[in-house]
Protein backbone atom coordinates (compact mmCIF):
# COMPACT_ATOMS: atom_id res chain seq x y z
CA UNK A 1 0.00 0.00 0.00
CA UNK A 2 1.40 3.33 -0.90
CA UNK A 3 1.86 5.74 1.96
CA UNK A 4 -1.08 7.93 2.74
CA UNK A 5 0.01 11.32 3.85
CA UNK A 6 -2.06 13.95 5.45
CA UNK A 7 -0.56 17.31 5.96
CA UNK A 8 -1.96 19.96 8.14
CA UNK A 9 -0.36 23.34 8.47
CA UNK A 10 -1.67 24.86 11.61
CA UNK A 11 -1.74 27.83 13.82
CA UNK A 12 0.19 30.46 11.99
CA UNK A 13 -0.81 29.78 8.44
CA UNK A 14 -3.32 32.59 8.43
CA UNK A 15 -1.02 34.90 10.27
CA UNK A 16 1.77 34.27 7.88
CA UNK A 17 -0.31 35.61 5.04
CA UNK A 18 -0.48 39.02 6.59
CA UNK A 19 2.55 41.02 5.68
CA UNK A 20 3.27 43.93 8.00
CA UNK A 21 2.63 47.31 6.51
CA UNK A 22 4.11 50.64 7.47
CA UNK A 23 2.53 52.18 10.50
CA UNK A 24 0.42 55.24 10.04
CA UNK A 25 1.93 58.63 10.77
CA UNK A 26 1.60 59.60 14.38
CA UNK A 27 -1.11 62.14 13.89
CA UNK A 28 -3.08 60.44 11.15
CA UNK A 29 -6.49 58.99 11.79
CA UNK A 30 -6.40 55.26 12.17
CA UNK A 31 -6.99 52.86 9.39
CA UNK A 32 -9.66 50.49 10.63
CA UNK A 33 -8.35 47.35 12.21
CA UNK A 34 -10.42 45.52 9.63
CA UNK A 35 -7.74 46.32 7.09
CA UNK A 36 -5.43 43.78 8.67
CA UNK A 37 -6.81 40.45 9.82
CA UNK A 38 -5.66 39.88 13.35
CA UNK A 39 -5.49 36.31 14.56
CA UNK A 40 -5.75 35.00 18.08
CA UNK A 41 -2.79 34.58 20.41
CA UNK A 42 -0.97 31.41 19.46
CA UNK A 43 1.87 29.12 20.38
CA UNK A 44 5.13 30.03 18.61
CA UNK A 45 5.23 26.81 16.66
CA UNK A 46 4.07 25.40 13.35
CA UNK A 47 2.94 21.80 13.14
CA UNK A 48 2.97 19.44 10.21
CA UNK A 49 1.63 15.93 10.59
CA UNK A 50 1.76 12.92 8.37
CA UNK A 51 0.89 9.24 8.53
CA UNK A 52 2.33 6.16 6.95
CA UNK A 53 0.66 2.78 6.75
CA UNK A 54 3.00 0.02 7.92
CA UNK A 55 0.72 -2.91 7.21
CA UNK A 56 -1.13 -5.19 9.55
CA UNK A 57 -3.19 -2.36 10.89
CA UNK A 58 -0.13 -0.49 12.07
CA UNK A 59 0.43 3.14 11.17
CA UNK A 60 3.20 5.55 11.88
CA UNK A 61 2.12 9.02 12.86
CA UNK A 62 4.71 11.73 12.54
CA UNK A 63 4.52 15.25 13.87
CA UNK A 64 7.10 17.84 12.94
CA UNK A 65 7.23 21.15 14.76
CA UNK A 66 9.12 24.28 13.82
CA UNK A 67 9.69 26.92 16.46
CA UNK A 68 8.81 30.31 15.01
CA UNK A 69 10.91 31.99 17.67
CA UNK A 70 13.36 30.87 20.31
CA UNK A 71 11.53 28.94 22.99
CA UNK A 72 12.73 27.80 26.41
CA UNK A 73 11.18 24.38 25.89
CA UNK A 74 9.46 22.39 23.20
CA UNK A 75 7.57 19.18 23.79
CA UNK A 76 5.78 17.00 21.27
CA UNK A 77 3.09 14.44 21.93
CA UNK A 78 1.17 11.91 19.90
CA UNK A 79 -1.56 10.50 22.07
CA UNK A 80 0.33 9.02 25.02
CA UNK A 81 3.80 9.30 23.50
CA UNK A 82 5.70 12.40 24.58
CA UNK A 83 9.16 13.75 24.09
CA UNK A 84 10.71 16.89 25.51
CA UNK A 85 13.29 18.61 23.34
CA UNK A 86 14.40 21.40 25.64
CA UNK A 87 15.20 24.94 24.51
CA UNK A 88 15.02 25.55 20.78
CA UNK A 89 16.26 28.46 18.68
CA UNK A 90 13.98 30.19 16.21
CA UNK A 91 13.51 28.07 13.12
CA UNK A 92 14.55 24.83 14.79
CA UNK A 93 12.62 21.74 13.73
CA UNK A 94 11.97 18.70 15.87
CA UNK A 95 10.13 15.50 15.05
CA UNK A 96 8.28 12.77 16.88
CA UNK A 97 6.94 9.53 15.46
CA UNK A 98 4.63 7.06 17.12
CA UNK A 99 3.06 3.80 16.05
CA UNK A 100 -0.70 3.44 16.17
CA UNK A 101 -2.45 0.16 15.48
CA UNK A 102 -6.09 -0.10 14.51
CA UNK A 103 -8.21 -3.15 13.84
CA UNK A 104 -8.82 -4.11 10.27
CA UNK A 105 -11.36 -1.86 8.68
CA UNK A 106 -11.38 0.52 11.62
CA UNK A 107 -9.97 3.99 11.99
CA UNK A 108 -9.09 6.36 14.79
CA UNK A 109 -8.45 10.05 15.29
CA UNK A 110 -5.02 10.70 16.76
CA UNK A 111 -4.15 13.96 18.49
CA UNK A 112 -0.68 15.31 17.86
CA UNK A 113 0.42 18.38 19.74
CA UNK A 114 3.29 20.68 20.54
CA UNK A 115 3.82 22.63 23.73
CA UNK A 116 6.19 25.52 24.05
CA UNK A 117 7.40 27.30 27.13
CA UNK A 118 7.25 26.20 30.70
CA UNK A 119 4.97 26.63 33.67
CA UNK A 120 2.71 29.65 33.28
CA UNK A 121 4.10 30.44 29.86
CA UNK A 122 3.13 27.14 28.30
CA UNK A 123 1.25 27.35 25.00
CA UNK A 124 0.07 24.49 22.86
CA UNK A 125 -0.99 23.76 19.30
CA UNK A 126 -2.77 20.61 18.24
CA UNK A 127 -3.66 18.66 15.14
CA UNK A 128 -5.99 15.72 14.65
CA UNK A 129 -4.83 13.02 12.28
CA UNK A 130 -7.00 10.19 11.02
CA UNK A 131 -5.39 6.79 10.63
CA UNK A 132 -6.96 3.67 9.21
CA UNK A 133 -10.39 3.80 7.71
CA UNK A 134 -11.87 7.23 7.12
CA UNK A 135 -14.31 8.42 9.71
CA UNK A 136 -17.90 7.62 8.96
CA UNK A 137 -19.57 10.76 7.79
CA UNK A 138 -22.42 11.40 10.14
CA UNK A 139 -25.63 12.40 8.51
CA UNK A 140 -26.07 16.11 9.01
CA UNK A 141 -28.88 16.97 11.38
CA UNK A 142 -32.13 17.76 9.64
CA UNK A 143 -32.42 21.42 8.85
CA UNK A 144 -34.92 23.76 7.34
CA UNK A 145 -34.69 27.39 6.39
CA UNK A 146 -36.89 29.88 8.20
CA UNK A 147 -37.35 33.45 7.14
CA UNK A 148 -37.77 35.95 9.93
CA UNK A 149 -40.09 38.94 9.45
CA UNK A 150 -37.16 41.19 8.51
CA UNK A 151 -36.02 38.75 5.83
CA UNK A 152 -33.19 37.18 7.79
CA UNK A 153 -32.70 33.54 6.93
CA UNK A 154 -32.20 31.04 9.71
CA UNK A 155 -31.00 27.52 9.12
CA UNK A 156 -32.83 25.66 11.84
CA UNK A 157 -31.58 22.39 13.25
CA UNK A 158 -34.40 20.41 14.74
CA UNK A 159 -33.33 17.14 16.28
Amino acid sequence: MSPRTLTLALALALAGACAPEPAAPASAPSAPAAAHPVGKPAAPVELVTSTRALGGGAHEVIVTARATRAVPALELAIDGTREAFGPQPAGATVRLAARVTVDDGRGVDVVASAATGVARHRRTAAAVVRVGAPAAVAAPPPTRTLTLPDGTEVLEVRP
Partner: protein
Amino acid sequence: MTRGVALAALALALASAVTLGACGGASGGGDDDDGTAPDADPGAPDAAPGTPDADPGAPDAGPVVPAACETIGPQGRCAGDVLDRCDGGELTSTDCAAGGQTCAYVDDATGYGCVDAASAGAFLARGVVRYEDRPPAPTGALGALTPVPARGAQVSIVRDSDSMVLATGLTSDDGSFALRYDAAAGAQVHVSVASRSPLAIRPVTVNRTQSAVHGFGGAAFAAAAEVTADLLVTDASGTSEAFNILDQLIRVMDMIRDDLGDATPSPLVARWSRGSNQGTYYDGSIRLLGASSDDDGYDDTVILHEAGHYVEDTQGRSDSPGGGHDGSPTDPNLAWSEGFSTYLAMAVNGAAFYADSNASGGWGYDGEGSTESTPTPGGAIGQDVSEDMIAAILWDVGDGGAGDDDPMTGGNHAAALRVQPDYLRASSLRNVGEAGVDLVDWLDGWFVEQGLASCAAMRGVVTQQRGFPYDFAGPGGACP
Protein backbone atom coordinates in the same frame (compact mmCIF):
# COMPACT_ATOMS: atom_id res chain seq x y z
CA MET B 1 -42.63 41.06 16.27
CA THR B 2 -45.77 39.61 17.68
CA ARG B 3 -48.43 40.09 15.11
CA GLY B 4 -51.59 41.89 15.91
CA VAL B 5 -50.30 43.67 18.95
CA ALA B 6 -52.08 46.91 19.65
CA LEU B 7 -49.42 49.30 20.84
CA ALA B 8 -52.05 51.52 22.30
CA ALA B 9 -52.83 48.80 24.77
CA LEU B 10 -49.54 49.08 26.52
CA ALA B 11 -49.78 49.56 30.22
CA LEU B 12 -49.25 52.97 31.67
CA ALA B 13 -46.05 51.77 33.14
CA LEU B 14 -44.63 51.45 29.69
CA ALA B 15 -46.22 54.55 28.32
CA SER B 16 -43.72 56.68 30.15
CA ALA B 17 -41.02 56.72 27.53
CA VAL B 18 -39.49 53.32 27.81
CA THR B 19 -35.96 53.61 26.57
CA LEU B 20 -34.18 50.48 25.64
CA GLY B 21 -30.57 50.42 26.58
CA ALA B 22 -30.86 52.18 29.85
CA CYS B 23 -30.84 49.02 31.89
CA GLY B 24 -27.42 48.90 33.43
CA GLY B 25 -28.23 45.54 34.87
CA ALA B 26 -27.61 43.92 31.57
CA SER B 27 -23.97 44.74 31.93
CA GLY B 28 -21.36 42.32 30.88
CA GLY B 29 -20.49 42.25 34.47
CA GLY B 30 -22.40 39.30 35.61
CA ASP B 31 -19.36 37.30 35.08
CA ASP B 32 -21.05 34.07 35.77
CA ASP B 33 -24.19 33.99 33.84
CA ASP B 34 -22.84 30.97 32.07
CA GLY B 35 -22.13 29.14 35.22
CA THR B 36 -18.41 29.52 35.06
CA ALA B 37 -16.52 30.42 38.13
CA PRO B 38 -13.31 32.02 37.01
CA ASP B 39 -10.60 30.74 39.21
CA ALA B 40 -9.16 33.11 41.72
CA ASP B 41 -5.65 31.92 41.09
CA PRO B 42 -4.89 33.47 37.73
CA GLY B 43 -6.59 36.63 38.72
CA ALA B 44 -9.09 37.01 41.42
CA PRO B 45 -12.56 37.59 40.04
CA ASP B 46 -12.77 41.27 39.70
CA ALA B 47 -15.41 43.81 39.14
CA ALA B 48 -16.16 43.50 35.46
CA PRO B 49 -17.04 46.54 33.42
CA GLY B 50 -20.40 47.85 34.29
CA THR B 51 -20.46 46.40 37.74
CA PRO B 52 -19.94 48.45 40.86
CA ASP B 53 -16.28 48.66 41.71
CA ALA B 54 -15.25 47.37 45.06
CA ASP B 55 -13.26 50.48 45.72
CA PRO B 56 -15.65 53.20 46.84
CA GLY B 57 -13.12 55.79 45.89
CA ALA B 58 -12.79 54.60 42.35
CA PRO B 59 -13.79 57.11 39.74
CA ASP B 60 -16.64 56.40 37.37
CA ALA B 61 -17.75 53.24 39.05
CA GLY B 62 -21.10 53.57 37.33
CA PRO B 63 -24.57 53.25 38.71
CA VAL B 64 -25.40 50.59 41.24
CA VAL B 65 -27.64 48.14 39.47
CA PRO B 66 -30.23 46.06 41.28
CA ALA B 67 -29.16 42.43 41.17
CA ALA B 68 -32.55 41.46 39.76
CA CYS B 69 -31.87 43.57 36.69
CA GLU B 70 -28.99 41.31 35.70
CA THR B 71 -31.47 38.61 34.65
CA ILE B 72 -33.92 40.90 32.90
CA GLY B 73 -32.03 42.83 30.27
CA PRO B 74 -33.04 45.84 28.22
CA GLN B 75 -35.97 44.01 26.66
CA GLY B 76 -37.73 43.41 29.98
CA ARG B 77 -39.27 40.16 31.16
CA CYS B 78 -42.63 38.55 31.80
CA ALA B 79 -42.91 36.60 35.04
CA GLY B 80 -46.34 35.21 34.43
CA ASP B 81 -48.44 38.31 33.94
CA VAL B 82 -46.07 40.49 35.89
CA LEU B 83 -43.95 42.74 33.71
CA ASP B 84 -40.42 43.40 34.97
CA ARG B 85 -38.51 46.28 33.45
CA CYS B 86 -35.12 47.72 34.30
CA ASP B 87 -35.24 51.03 32.52
CA GLY B 88 -32.76 53.50 33.92
CA GLY B 89 -31.29 50.86 36.16
CA GLU B 90 -34.42 50.79 38.29
CA LEU B 91 -36.40 47.59 38.61
CA THR B 92 -40.11 48.16 38.20
CA SER B 93 -42.75 45.42 38.27
CA THR B 94 -46.23 45.88 36.84
CA ASP B 95 -49.10 43.43 37.27
CA CYS B 96 -50.59 43.41 33.79
CA ALA B 97 -53.53 41.30 34.93
CA ALA B 98 -54.61 44.01 37.31
CA GLY B 99 -55.32 46.16 34.29
CA GLY B 100 -57.08 43.37 32.45
CA GLN B 101 -54.05 42.77 30.27
CA THR B 102 -51.42 40.12 29.81
CA CYS B 103 -47.64 40.26 29.64
CA ALA B 104 -46.00 39.42 26.31
CA TYR B 105 -43.43 40.59 23.79
CA VAL B 106 -44.52 43.71 21.94
CA ASP B 107 -41.78 44.51 19.43
CA ASP B 108 -38.05 45.11 19.32
CA ALA B 109 -38.46 48.81 20.09
CA THR B 110 -40.49 48.11 23.20
CA GLY B 111 -39.55 44.66 24.37
CA TYR B 112 -41.93 43.04 26.82
CA GLY B 113 -45.01 44.94 27.87
CA CYS B 114 -48.61 44.70 29.03
CA VAL B 115 -50.90 44.05 26.09
CA ASP B 116 -54.54 43.27 25.39
CA ALA B 117 -54.69 39.55 24.86
CA ALA B 118 -57.52 39.87 22.37
CA SER B 119 -55.52 41.98 19.96
CA ALA B 120 -52.07 40.55 20.61
CA GLY B 121 -52.76 36.99 19.50
CA ALA B 122 -55.13 34.28 20.60
CA PHE B 123 -52.47 31.93 21.90
CA LEU B 124 -49.53 32.29 24.27
CA ALA B 125 -46.31 30.29 24.34
CA ARG B 126 -43.91 30.86 27.17
CA GLY B 127 -40.83 29.12 28.42
CA VAL B 128 -37.09 29.37 28.94
CA VAL B 129 -34.41 28.95 26.28
CA ARG B 130 -31.10 27.54 27.43
CA TYR B 131 -28.03 26.31 25.62
CA GLU B 132 -25.39 23.80 26.62
CA ASP B 133 -22.17 25.56 27.54
CA ARG B 134 -18.77 24.16 28.41
CA PRO B 135 -17.31 26.69 30.82
CA PRO B 136 -13.61 27.27 30.23
CA ALA B 137 -11.05 26.85 32.99
CA PRO B 138 -8.00 29.12 33.23
CA THR B 139 -5.87 26.22 31.99
CA GLY B 140 -7.71 26.13 28.68
CA ALA B 141 -9.62 22.98 29.52
CA LEU B 142 -13.37 23.02 29.04
CA GLY B 143 -15.81 21.92 31.70
CA ALA B 144 -18.75 19.57 31.39
CA LEU B 145 -21.82 20.54 29.41
CA THR B 146 -23.89 22.89 31.51
CA PRO B 147 -27.26 24.39 30.55
CA VAL B 148 -27.23 28.19 30.81
CA PRO B 149 -29.80 30.82 29.77
CA ALA B 150 -29.73 32.04 26.19
CA ARG B 151 -29.94 35.73 26.83
CA GLY B 152 -31.19 38.23 24.30
CA ALA B 153 -31.62 35.65 21.53
CA GLN B 154 -34.29 35.93 18.87
CA VAL B 155 -37.04 33.43 19.60
CA SER B 156 -39.97 32.60 17.34
CA ILE B 157 -43.13 30.54 17.12
CA VAL B 158 -43.08 28.59 13.87
CA ARG B 159 -45.92 26.71 12.18
CA ASP B 160 -44.76 23.22 11.34
CA SER B 161 -46.80 22.76 8.18
CA ASP B 162 -45.09 25.49 6.18
CA SER B 163 -42.33 26.89 8.46
CA MET B 164 -44.19 30.18 8.68
CA VAL B 165 -42.92 32.39 11.50
CA LEU B 166 -46.03 33.37 13.45
CA ALA B 167 -44.44 35.55 16.10
CA THR B 168 -40.94 36.56 17.08
CA GLY B 169 -39.28 38.33 19.96
CA LEU B 170 -36.22 38.22 22.21
CA THR B 171 -35.48 36.18 25.25
CA SER B 172 -34.98 38.07 28.46
CA ASP B 173 -31.58 37.81 30.07
CA ASP B 174 -32.74 34.81 32.10
CA GLY B 175 -33.66 33.07 28.84
CA SER B 176 -37.39 33.39 29.39
CA PHE B 177 -39.85 34.40 26.70
CA ALA B 178 -43.58 34.99 26.29
CA LEU B 179 -44.90 35.25 22.74
CA ARG B 180 -48.52 35.67 21.63
CA TYR B 181 -49.51 34.39 18.22
CA ASP B 182 -52.45 33.44 16.05
CA ALA B 183 -52.92 30.02 14.47
CA ALA B 184 -55.63 27.52 13.85
CA ALA B 185 -56.51 25.86 17.13
CA GLY B 186 -54.63 22.61 17.38
CA ALA B 187 -52.20 23.47 14.61
CA GLN B 188 -48.74 22.06 15.19
CA VAL B 189 -46.21 24.73 16.05
CA HIS B 190 -42.80 24.85 17.74
CA VAL B 191 -40.39 27.24 19.41
CA SER B 192 -37.31 28.18 17.42
CA VAL B 193 -34.35 30.25 18.59
CA ALA B 194 -31.81 32.02 16.41
CA SER B 195 -28.25 33.12 17.27
CA ARG B 196 -29.01 36.74 16.69
CA SER B 197 -30.00 39.91 18.49
CA PRO B 198 -31.49 42.64 16.30
CA LEU B 199 -31.65 45.21 19.11
CA ALA B 200 -29.91 48.46 18.26
CA ILE B 201 -28.06 48.29 21.56
CA ARG B 202 -27.05 44.66 21.04
CA PRO B 203 -26.62 44.29 17.29
CA VAL B 204 -25.05 40.85 17.11
CA THR B 205 -25.47 38.09 14.55
CA VAL B 206 -23.73 34.73 14.67
CA ASN B 207 -23.79 33.12 11.26
CA ARG B 208 -22.72 29.80 9.97
CA THR B 209 -19.69 30.12 7.74
CA GLN B 210 -22.09 31.07 5.00
CA SER B 211 -24.69 33.74 5.58
CA ALA B 212 -27.50 31.90 7.34
CA VAL B 213 -28.01 32.39 11.05
CA HIS B 214 -27.83 29.35 13.34
CA GLY B 215 -31.23 28.15 14.50
CA PHE B 216 -32.53 25.44 16.79
CA GLY B 217 -36.10 24.21 16.94
CA GLY B 218 -37.92 22.38 19.69
CA ALA B 219 -40.62 19.75 19.79
CA ALA B 220 -43.96 20.42 18.16
CA PHE B 221 -47.02 21.20 20.23
CA ALA B 222 -50.60 22.04 19.44
CA ALA B 223 -51.49 25.71 19.40
CA ALA B 224 -53.53 26.41 22.50
CA ALA B 225 -54.46 29.20 24.85
CA GLU B 226 -51.27 28.84 26.87
CA VAL B 227 -48.43 26.40 26.44
CA THR B 228 -45.14 26.22 28.27
CA ALA B 229 -42.39 25.07 25.93
CA ASP B 230 -38.82 25.22 27.23
CA LEU B 231 -35.95 24.78 24.82
CA LEU B 232 -32.44 23.40 25.33
CA VAL B 233 -30.00 23.99 22.49
CA THR B 234 -27.78 20.94 22.68
CA ASP B 235 -24.12 20.49 21.93
CA ALA B 236 -25.05 17.43 19.89
CA SER B 237 -26.98 19.64 17.49
CA GLY B 238 -23.80 21.48 16.57
CA THR B 239 -25.39 24.83 17.35
CA SER B 240 -24.92 25.44 21.08
CA GLU B 241 -21.56 27.10 20.53
CA ALA B 242 -23.19 29.68 18.29
CA PHE B 243 -25.34 30.68 21.24
CA ASN B 244 -22.31 30.89 23.49
CA ILE B 245 -20.67 33.19 20.95
CA LEU B 246 -23.83 35.29 20.87
CA ASP B 247 -23.83 35.46 24.65
CA GLN B 248 -20.20 36.59 24.84
CA LEU B 249 -20.72 39.26 22.20
CA ILE B 250 -23.83 40.53 23.97
CA ARG B 251 -21.65 40.98 27.05
CA VAL B 252 -19.35 43.14 24.94
CA MET B 253 -22.27 45.19 23.61
CA ASP B 254 -23.46 45.77 27.17
CA MET B 255 -19.97 46.91 28.15
CA ILE B 256 -19.93 49.32 25.22
CA ARG B 257 -23.25 50.76 26.32
CA ASP B 258 -22.53 50.91 30.04
CA ASP B 259 -18.84 51.78 30.06
CA LEU B 260 -18.12 53.45 26.76
CA GLY B 261 -21.45 55.27 26.60
CA ASP B 262 -22.46 54.13 23.13
CA ALA B 263 -26.06 52.85 23.02
CA THR B 264 -26.00 52.22 19.28
CA PRO B 265 -22.81 50.28 18.59
CA SER B 266 -21.94 49.13 15.09
CA PRO B 267 -23.46 45.79 14.11
CA LEU B 268 -21.15 42.86 14.71
CA VAL B 269 -21.23 39.62 12.74
CA ALA B 270 -19.43 36.50 13.87
CA ARG B 271 -19.05 33.34 11.83
CA TRP B 272 -18.61 29.89 13.29
CA SER B 273 -19.57 26.43 12.21
CA ARG B 274 -18.59 23.09 13.64
CA GLY B 275 -15.82 21.78 11.43
CA SER B 276 -14.72 25.17 10.18
CA ASN B 277 -10.95 25.42 9.85
CA GLN B 278 -10.77 28.90 8.38
CA GLY B 279 -9.01 30.45 11.33
CA THR B 280 -9.88 32.68 14.25
CA TYR B 281 -9.44 36.35 13.50
CA TYR B 282 -11.12 39.74 13.15
CA ASP B 283 -11.27 41.51 9.82
CA GLY B 284 -14.35 43.66 10.27
CA SER B 285 -16.30 40.62 11.37
CA ILE B 286 -15.21 37.81 13.63
CA ARG B 287 -14.37 34.38 12.34
CA LEU B 288 -13.90 31.52 14.78
CA LEU B 289 -12.46 28.07 14.37
CA GLY B 290 -14.75 25.08 14.72
CA ALA B 291 -12.24 22.38 13.83
CA SER B 292 -11.81 19.14 15.73
CA SER B 293 -8.21 20.13 16.44
CA ASP B 294 -9.17 23.60 17.63
CA ASP B 295 -12.75 24.70 18.22
CA ASP B 296 -13.17 28.18 19.74
CA GLY B 297 -16.95 28.12 20.15
CA TYR B 298 -16.76 27.64 23.91
CA ASP B 299 -13.53 29.59 24.41
CA ASP B 300 -14.98 32.69 26.02
CA THR B 301 -11.74 34.65 26.26
CA VAL B 302 -10.82 33.86 22.66
CA ILE B 303 -14.21 35.13 21.51
CA LEU B 304 -13.89 38.20 23.71
CA HIS B 305 -10.33 38.84 22.52
CA GLU B 306 -11.53 39.02 18.92
CA ALA B 307 -14.36 41.27 20.07
CA GLY B 308 -11.65 43.48 21.55
CA HIS B 309 -10.44 44.12 18.02
CA TYR B 310 -13.99 45.07 17.06
CA VAL B 311 -14.05 47.53 19.97
CA GLU B 312 -10.79 49.21 19.00
CA ASP B 313 -11.94 49.24 15.38
CA THR B 314 -15.33 50.82 16.04
CA GLN B 315 -14.83 52.67 19.31
CA GLY B 316 -11.16 53.52 19.37
CA ARG B 317 -8.18 53.18 17.16
CA SER B 318 -5.82 50.55 15.90
CA ASP B 319 -2.72 50.80 13.77
CA SER B 320 -1.92 47.14 14.04
CA PRO B 321 -0.12 45.72 11.03
CA GLY B 322 -1.80 42.37 11.77
CA GLY B 323 0.06 39.13 11.63
CA GLY B 324 1.00 36.39 14.04
CA HIS B 325 1.74 37.00 17.69
CA ASP B 326 2.69 34.73 20.52
CA GLY B 327 3.47 36.86 23.54
CA SER B 328 7.06 37.58 22.62
CA PRO B 329 8.25 41.14 22.05
CA THR B 330 6.86 42.45 18.79
CA ASP B 331 5.95 45.60 16.91
CA PRO B 332 4.49 48.06 19.45
CA ASN B 333 1.38 48.69 17.32
CA LEU B 334 0.67 44.98 17.06
CA ALA B 335 1.49 44.36 20.70
CA TRP B 336 -0.82 47.19 21.74
CA SER B 337 -3.74 45.91 19.69
CA GLU B 338 -3.36 42.37 20.94
CA GLY B 339 -2.67 43.33 24.54
CA PHE B 340 -5.68 45.62 24.62
CA SER B 341 -7.89 42.92 23.16
CA THR B 342 -6.78 40.37 25.70
CA TYR B 343 -7.29 42.93 28.45
CA LEU B 344 -10.80 43.65 27.20
CA ALA B 345 -11.53 39.92 27.29
CA MET B 346 -10.34 39.71 30.87
CA ALA B 347 -12.21 42.85 31.91
CA VAL B 348 -15.52 41.71 30.42
CA ASN B 349 -14.96 38.27 31.92
CA GLY B 350 -14.07 39.77 35.30
CA ALA B 351 -11.03 37.52 35.74
CA ALA B 352 -7.40 37.91 34.76
CA PHE B 353 -6.82 34.92 32.54
CA TYR B 354 -6.79 34.03 28.87
CA ALA B 355 -7.57 30.45 27.90
CA ASP B 356 -7.79 28.62 24.60
CA SER B 357 -8.90 25.00 24.35
CA ASN B 358 -7.72 22.60 21.67
CA ALA B 359 -7.66 18.88 21.02
CA SER B 360 -4.71 18.41 23.35
CA GLY B 361 -6.46 20.17 26.20
CA GLY B 362 -5.49 23.75 25.50
CA TRP B 363 -3.51 26.38 27.27
CA GLY B 364 -4.06 29.43 29.35
CA TYR B 365 -2.13 32.01 31.21
CA ASP B 366 -2.43 34.35 34.14
CA GLY B 367 -3.03 37.70 32.54
CA GLU B 368 -1.94 39.60 35.58
CA GLY B 369 1.19 37.84 36.70
CA SER B 370 2.52 35.99 33.71
CA THR B 371 4.63 38.22 31.54
CA GLU B 372 7.11 36.05 29.75
CA SER B 373 9.06 38.89 28.19
CA THR B 374 9.82 42.12 29.96
CA PRO B 375 11.13 45.25 28.30
CA THR B 376 14.83 45.69 27.90
CA PRO B 377 16.12 47.60 30.91
CA GLY B 378 17.09 51.08 29.82
CA GLY B 379 15.67 50.41 26.39
CA ALA B 380 13.87 52.89 24.21
CA ILE B 381 10.28 53.86 24.77
CA GLY B 382 9.51 52.57 21.29
CA GLN B 383 11.09 49.15 21.73
CA ASP B 384 9.30 45.96 20.81
CA VAL B 385 7.16 44.78 23.71
CA SER B 386 5.05 41.81 24.70
CA GLU B 387 1.28 41.92 24.30
CA ASP B 388 1.12 40.05 27.61
CA MET B 389 2.88 42.94 29.35
CA ILE B 390 0.35 45.38 27.92
CA ALA B 391 -2.59 43.26 29.04
CA ALA B 392 -1.02 42.98 32.50
CA ILE B 393 -0.50 46.74 32.80
CA LEU B 394 -4.06 47.49 31.71
CA TRP B 395 -5.43 44.91 34.12
CA ASP B 396 -3.42 46.36 37.00
CA VAL B 397 -4.70 49.82 36.14
CA GLY B 398 -8.27 48.60 35.84
CA ASP B 399 -8.60 46.29 38.81
CA GLY B 400 -8.91 47.44 42.34
CA GLY B 401 -10.54 46.88 45.65
CA ALA B 402 -9.69 44.57 48.49
CA GLY B 403 -6.84 42.23 47.73
CA ASP B 404 -5.50 44.24 44.84
CA ASP B 405 -1.84 43.37 44.46
CA ASP B 406 -0.66 46.44 42.61
CA PRO B 407 -0.29 50.12 43.49
CA MET B 408 -3.27 51.19 41.34
CA THR B 409 -5.92 50.32 43.88
CA GLY B 410 -8.27 53.07 42.76
CA GLY B 411 -8.62 52.18 39.12
CA ASN B 412 -11.57 50.63 37.38
CA HIS B 413 -11.96 48.84 34.11
CA ALA B 414 -14.45 51.29 32.66
CA ALA B 415 -11.96 54.14 33.00
CA ALA B 416 -9.20 52.08 31.43
CA LEU B 417 -11.40 51.05 28.52
CA ARG B 418 -12.74 54.54 27.92
CA VAL B 419 -9.34 55.83 26.90
CA GLN B 420 -10.09 54.21 23.53
CA PRO B 421 -13.11 56.35 22.54
CA ASP B 422 -12.28 59.38 24.67
CA TYR B 423 -8.69 59.84 23.61
CA LEU B 424 -7.24 57.39 21.12
CA ARG B 425 -10.05 57.57 18.60
CA ALA B 426 -9.72 61.22 17.66
CA SER B 427 -6.69 62.73 19.34
CA SER B 428 -3.46 63.63 17.63
CA LEU B 429 -0.98 61.27 19.14
CA ARG B 430 2.36 62.33 20.51
CA ASN B 431 5.19 61.44 18.22
CA VAL B 432 7.20 59.48 20.74
CA GLY B 433 8.52 56.00 20.20
CA GLU B 434 6.70 53.99 17.57
CA ALA B 435 4.44 55.84 15.15
CA GLY B 436 0.81 54.81 15.40
CA VAL B 437 -1.15 53.89 18.48
CA ASP B 438 0.62 51.88 21.14
CA LEU B 439 0.91 51.62 24.90
CA VAL B 440 2.60 55.03 25.11
CA ASP B 441 -0.44 56.66 23.56
CA TRP B 442 -2.84 54.86 25.90
CA LEU B 443 -0.77 56.04 28.87
CA ASP B 444 -0.83 59.56 27.46
CA GLY B 445 -4.61 59.28 27.18
CA TRP B 446 -4.97 57.95 30.69
CA PHE B 447 -3.37 61.05 32.16
CA VAL B 448 -5.30 63.35 29.82
CA GLU B 449 -8.55 61.77 30.94
CA GLN B 450 -7.73 61.14 34.59
CA GLY B 451 -5.33 63.94 35.47
CA LEU B 452 -2.10 63.43 37.34
CA ALA B 453 -3.46 62.18 40.66
CA SER B 454 -2.49 58.61 39.80
CA CYS B 455 1.12 59.41 38.82
CA ALA B 456 2.75 57.62 41.72
CA ALA B 457 0.61 54.54 41.47
CA MET B 458 1.01 54.40 37.71
CA ARG B 459 4.78 54.63 38.06
CA GLY B 460 4.55 51.69 40.41
CA VAL B 461 2.69 49.61 37.86
CA VAL B 462 4.26 50.70 34.60
CA THR B 463 7.90 51.21 35.40
CA GLN B 464 8.54 49.45 38.70
CA GLN B 465 6.44 46.32 38.25
CA ARG B 466 6.53 45.91 34.48
CA GLY B 467 9.73 47.77 33.57
CA PHE B 468 8.28 49.77 30.71
CA PRO B 469 10.23 53.04 30.19
CA TYR B 470 7.28 55.43 29.81
CA ASP B 471 8.40 59.01 30.20
CA PHE B 472 5.38 60.30 32.18
CA ALA B 473 5.50 63.51 30.16
CA GLY B 474 2.55 63.28 27.83
CA PRO B 475 -0.04 65.85 26.85
CA GLY B 476 -1.82 65.41 30.18
CA GLY B 477 1.15 67.00 31.90
CA ALA B 478 4.43 65.90 33.41
CA CYS B 479 4.19 63.69 36.45
CA PRO B 480 6.19 64.97 39.40
